[in-house]
């Protein structure tokens, strides 16, 4: 009888451990595609990606449609080549859509925003988004601002 209680409680313990793993996997880390591959890959070349990182979200109209999977430097054009995995559910993105690097809030992380185009053809696995806008780098912006302010004051004097 005692061995039976021990066996049951050990089994219960194991089950609890597995349940905890399931909880951590699905509720905490939001793992949804266990087998994966419900995605297709699209690339885009940017002049400057700012602080974009791998696994950053890809959004269209603010809705998450995929994530960045790879960032490389193109050694010929010196542009950043960003590979994105887009969910298969969103397979009707026009061919001439544009991609830009945006920031969540003022100090938030970067993400890729896709704005739809008007073409009848859709993006497919391996296609490339040609129309891209680089990230706004705050330092450059401030530099330009100072430059124009200086120019203005020179004209006045």
């Amino acid at each position, binding site marked *: 009888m005692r061995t039976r209680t021990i066996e049951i409680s*050990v089994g219960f313990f194991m089950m609890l451990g597995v349940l*905890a*793993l399931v909880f*951590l996997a699905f509720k905490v*880390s*939001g*793992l949804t595609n266990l087998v994966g591959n419900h995605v297709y890959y699209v690339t885009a070349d940017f002049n400057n990606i700012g602080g974009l990182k791998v696994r950053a979200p890809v959004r269209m109209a603010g809705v998450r449609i995929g994530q960045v999977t790879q960032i490389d430097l193109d050694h010929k054009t010196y542009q950043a080549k960003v590979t994105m995995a887009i969910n298969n559910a969103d397979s009707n993105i026009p061919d001439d859509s544009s991609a830009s690097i945006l920031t969540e809030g003022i100090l938030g992380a970067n993400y890729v925003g896709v704005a739809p185009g008007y073409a009848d053809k859709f993006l497919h696995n391996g296609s490339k988004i040609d129309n891209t806008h680089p990230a706004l780098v705050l330092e450059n912006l401030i530099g330009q601002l100072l430059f124009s302010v200086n120019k203005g004051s020179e004209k006045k004097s």
Partner: protein
Amino acid sequence: MIARMQALGEQGLNFCGTFGRAGLFLLATLLRRPRLIRTFPLLVNELYSVGVLSLIIIIVSGLFIGMVLGLQGYNILVDFAASEKLGTLVALSIVRELGPVVAALLFAGRAGSALTAEIGLMKATEQLDSMEMIGVDPLWRIISPRLWAGFIALPLLTLIFSAVAILGGYLVGVQWLGIDGGSFWSNMQATVHFREDVVNGIIKSLVFGFVVVWIAVFQGFDAVPTSAGISRATTKTVVYSSLAILGLDFVLTAMMMGGW
């Protein structure tokens, strides 16, 4: 002077000797011919005393650590109007660091010391020797199931600890302090990654389990067979395994952060 240097050298040699014995002991136990069907009932018994009996302390301390993290984190985050990020803060710190480390420390205190004392007492009362006399291999009968039970139990305990702690954070943050539950979970899910965070935590707990149980069992097996010796061995188990856990945690974190 010479005598002191001699003593120092002796200590060094003793240290190396202990290390060597511990390694050989581990190898001898692990490389034993596995007799699965006969080991299994022993393993279940040990899992009970090592795992199930540690469950209470793990769950209670996990709950309180999660609640404290929720409370502290909320008070800091609310200054930056970022209290919705509490879920991220609690989940990441628990899953990456606190879960594996605190669970391992508690495990060393609760189960490691018990293992050492049990095996040490068996040695002191010559049970191990008499077992060898009647032809039962004590490494197989006593040591091996305890070793394996520890390896299996600590990762499971760590998972339970992390889950309970996150629920504790949820309890304080959402139920008590009134953060929106939806943003609590969704912010958490957006930042916590299964492979990088959860699996790395499990890897840590596997390493800790291995080290803690190894130290505990070896200290028991190597104890001086007197009552003072057993008490010293138990102390050593807790001290050494705590140090090993904290040191290894740093090394493992450095390796994992370095894109390993």
